[in-house]
């Protein structure tokens, strides 16, 4: 049964397959980077400055003679970690808030959802920027602030789904049996929205990668010696014409990361 379902999905779900392949490649690059990089990511070499793509440096070198591939492998780890942390904070808090407000409704729902609406009014990058400027720069602050900025969208999605589910007969049925409210929310209702949650998480992951890159590019994200993909882009900007491979390579990795996860999200929502 399960085998058949997987086979069918691989056959007529090109998004899923493409997503798996691209995400797999990026993850492979990152995971290999944890154990082995061609060069030390921070090792400088004055004689190898701003070299283009070559056999010894597959992605060229930067303005300090550091190997871009090694730095990309290292940087994608930071970017992925921040994105994961962001989505974790956003999804957990957002799910709890959305589920509780949606389920109980009433005054609390109104108040909390208006606050969420107010948060929604700011673009999440701007919101994170405000939080970072209050708490200072650094990747922990970046992670927490992006996490908070991601709460509203998850809360909205989960609340809508819980509202849809809570008037179904199976909820009334469970209530007749004496199921408590908390058990109802987390054991009976949430498993029914896991598909929606999965694609929301993957789309959130994308936005988190982009937001991290954007914020690091603006200089409020990870500080040296931590290299994230966004930071590399901003460093490479001024050498865009002298050594295009320096700016293109981290950029392409970001694009692949985002593309892979959005394909995965699309694929999961089309899962049959």
């Amino acid at each position, binding site marked *: 049964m399960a085998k058949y379902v997987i086979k069918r999905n691989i056959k007529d779900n090109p998004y899923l397959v493409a997503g798996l392949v691209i995400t797999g490649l990026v993850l492979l690059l990152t995971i290999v980077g944890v154990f082995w990089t061609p060069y030390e990511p921070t090792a400088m070499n004055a004689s190898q400055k701003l070299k283009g793509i070559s056999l010894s440096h597959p992605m060229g070198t930067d303005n300090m003679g550091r190997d871009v591939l090694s730095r990309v492998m290292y940087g994608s780890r930071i970017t992925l970690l921040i994105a994961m942390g962001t989505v974790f904070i956003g999804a957990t808090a957002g799910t709890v808030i959305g589920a509780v407000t949606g389920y109980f409704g009433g005054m609390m729902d109104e108040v909390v959802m208006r606050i969420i609406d107010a948060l929604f009014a700011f673009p999440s990058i701007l919101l994170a920027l405000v939080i970072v400027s209050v708490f200072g720069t650094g990747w922990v602050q970046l992670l927490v602030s992006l996490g908070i900025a991601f709460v509203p969208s998850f809360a909205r999605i989960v609340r809508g789904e819980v509202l849809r589910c809570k008037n179904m*007969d*199976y909820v009334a*049925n469970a209530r007749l*049996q*004496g199921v408590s409210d908390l058990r109802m929310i987390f054991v009976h209702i949430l498993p029914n929205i896991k598909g929606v949650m999965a694609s929301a998480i993957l789309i959130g992951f994308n936005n988190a990668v982009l937001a991290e890159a954007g914020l690091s590019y603006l200089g409020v994200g990870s500080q040296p010696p931590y290299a994230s993909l966004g930071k590399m882009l901003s460093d490479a900007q001024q050498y865009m014409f002298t050594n295009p491979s320096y700016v293109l390579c981290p950029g392409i990795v970001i694009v692949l990361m985002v593309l892979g996860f959005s394909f995965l999200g699309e694929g999961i929502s089309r899962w049959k």
Partner: protein
Amino acid sequence: MSEDVIKISNLNVFYKNRKRKLFSGDKKIQALFDVSMNLEEGEVLAIAGESGCGKSTLARTIVGINKDYTGNIWQKYDRPQMVFQDPYSSLNPAKKIDWLLKEPLRVDSRRKWTEEEMDERVRQIMEDIEMPLSMLDRYPAQLSGGQRQRICIGMALMRSPKVLIADEPVSALDVTIQAQILELLENLHKKLGISIIFISHDLRVVYKISDHVMIMKEGRVVEYGKTRDIYRDPQHSYTRQLLEAAGIR
């Protein structure tokens, strides 16, 4: 004359007005007007009437889903169970049958059930509702409507309630399956001696299964008495109309 298990007097039930405008305030819509009835131990009481006459509202008020009412509801036993009309929405699609059947036991506040006791009870119930044990491993989506309704009945019976409310349990099923489910309900009624409130708009089904019948129209009781008497000699013109429409008179 046996004892009553449910006594209801002068029940009025209200719903919130959904079409709330900004300054209109909280106007309520009244769904039931001055309903009185009682259910005897071990009998089948049918509630019949057209769609929207308040049958389901009455059932939902008795089991405690609607809380906005005036009047008295007295029940001898707590936690009456209910079988819902639509078997396609009354089983949690994310859970397997085995899990669903055990859930009433897991949340039982009167006693703690061990895993073996639960398995044993599930086996008994599956036998009562005439379902093979191989179904336990399936999701509701893998069952037919009739099978789902059997599972719903099984879930309702898990904790051996004394009162079962069946809210149009067969109207979402096709005719042959209807007959099977009705037969199952009758058998369970005889075997377990539970009192059943059977809600239906189908007067033929009502005649087959019930001891007493209550005819409702627009939230009011229009006729109430022994099924046989009412079918033989309906007093109210609406009852006569219903019987004619069902092709009985």
